[in-house]
């Protein structure tokens, strides 16, 4: 469904990604784990065309999207939940959700019902300002907003950032439910490697802009180098 083929990206003179290749197949949850500054978010952003890849190709559903402008890429059936949630703070929950369906050509009503079924909390708070929600609710809103464009591939950037463990579990359960019930394909970037690898079918480990390890979630969890580097050995 998504193929990133030997992509390199740089911010000015700083090389952020070095010939990274990953694939995401239909119906999979794939996760990228790695330390701070390894290039996980950059890879996600490069898929969206901002920053643009210096070399290599990004192919989504057999279509080369490497050179497309961001707003066109985001209309092809992929949606991104940006790092730090980025809900619109002064707009209501409802308006936030409708912003997700802004560029779509379908009726937002059934999707709205689907999002409210997944996160009933959002329905209760629909007329509240986005900025007044708790961190977990904002994350639900950010995911809900992304779902409103009816994506086939969901890109999630650090959904567990700054959330309590209980809330993280709820968010991850929601991602699993979306994948299993709706068949949504997910590419998940996480620092919380343990949770992410347990959830994902497959994973990649990114170190200094390079893919160093790849395998199924369970395989990666069992590897001693992954355990030592990202799991603190304690889990």
């Amino acid at each position, binding site marked *: 469904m998504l193929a990133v083929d030997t992509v390199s990206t740089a911010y000015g003179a700083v090389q952020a990604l070095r010939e990274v290749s990953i694939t995401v197949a239909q119906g999979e949850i794939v996760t990228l784990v790695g330390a701070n500054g390894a290039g996980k978010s950059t890879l996600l952003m490069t898929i969206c065309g901002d920053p643009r890849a210096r070399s290599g190709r990004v192919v989504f559903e057999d279509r080369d999207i490497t050179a497309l402008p961001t707003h066109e890429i*985001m209309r092809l059936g992929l*949606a991104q939940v940006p790092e730090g949630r980025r*809900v619109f703070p*002064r707009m209501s929950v409802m308006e936030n959700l*409708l912003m997700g369906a802004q*560029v779509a050509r379908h009726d937002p009503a059934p999707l709205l019902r689907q999002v409210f079924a997944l996160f009933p909390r959002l329905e209760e708070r629909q*007329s509240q300002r986005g900025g007044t929600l708790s961190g977990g609710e904002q994350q639900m809103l950010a995911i809900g907003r992304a779902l409103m464009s009816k994506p086939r591939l969901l890109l999630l950037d650090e959904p567990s950032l700054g959330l309590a463990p209980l809330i993280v579990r709820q968010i991850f359960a929601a991602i699993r439910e979306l994948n299993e019930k709706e068949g949504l394909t997910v590419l998940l970037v996480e620092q919380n490697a343990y949770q992410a690898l347990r959830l994902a079918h497959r994973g990649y480990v990114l170190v200094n802009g390079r893919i160093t390890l790849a395998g199924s979630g369970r395989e990666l969890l069992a590897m001693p180098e992954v355990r030592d580097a990202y799991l603190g050995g304690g889990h």
Partner: protein
Amino acid sequence: MTPAVLKDAALTALVAFGLFAPMVGLRTDVGPTGELVLRQRWGDVAILVGIAFVGRIALMAWRAVRGEPKPPSAARTEAIRRAGTFVAPVLLAFAVALPLIPGTGRYELDLGILVLTYVMLGWGLNIVVGLAGLLDLGYVAFYAVGAYSYALLATNFGLSFWICLPLAGILASFWGILLGFPVLRLRGDYLAIVTLAFGEIIRIVLLNWVSLTGGPNGVSGIPRPTFFGLSFSMSGEPDTFAGFFGIEPSPSHRVIFLYYLILGLALLTNWVSIRLRRQPLGRAWEALREDEIACRALGINITATKLTAFALGAMFAGFAGSFFATRQGFISPESFTFIESAIILAIVVLGGMGSQIGIAIAALVMIGGFEVFRDLDEWRMLVFGGAMVLIMVVRPRGLVGHRTPTVALGERRSISAEHVAEGHG
């Protein structure tokens, strides 16, 4: 009295001294033989600094007695919102009825026209600043483009006001887009500086392109508007307004017509803004104000969204500009200085960014209030500045700081501004 209070008061006195020493302490007068004499008034400075010192101590003492200032409650915001729902129709009814109210003379109508012009400019700038969140300090440039478009098209080609009005709007929005392109990637302070420069560029070009604009002499003899081809002259001929309708010719007909014209244009601006806010485009503007990166992630075309905001805001300034030209009959670059941009922006900010009724009230207070205090002569600016500071202290988010969501399932509830910190959106 603690040393902290004394220190604070001393600091206040120091600031007061810095301010008043050159402004009050030194004064140039014309001497007996015609030369300038420097007169020193250190006694007055001492009094002012003393007032600042004592006033600061009194303020601190009052605060200590009263305790910590309480944040304004949501109930107060709710009360203001409820008041707003009937204030708007009352204000509108008053605006429509003003020329018919007995005792309304030429002066009141002229003042009404002036206020309405600023209401319209405020609503137009609100699209750019209040909705799309693009801080524009050069808004007067589009006002100037509109005014000169009408003035030059009418005087050179004899086109009528009703043909020139849309043309002026189109030309102004063209300039809006032209300004929009280079500033697409700028936000906040940087955007403000570039738009400020743009406003000055337009004014200086108007001032120096003498062959086209007449330079500092401006354009005079701009045709006055006609009532669907009927002029407002005093002759009473059949092709004049008075002659056609068989009424006594009166100079007030034109003023009343101009009044209703600007009222109509202002209401058009308001209607378009309100309609657009409920459309995807308006929602995209507001989202853009809140978070540009999130907008990008949602597939919104940032370029198109920003440019439409600039173009639409500029278009209404262009309409207002051509109204200004036809009303004055004479325009010159002097009417389009930076202070105009600043006043319009102050109206938008004081009114509460994004609030239609707030902006109308702010324009009424700022422009109308300025006239009311005419008797105060040189103290007028002081009252004006004091009023602005007072509004910002009492209601930091503007007079009407809440916004009602444009969509909701079931009951619409407005969200109080106090729930979100200042500077967030």
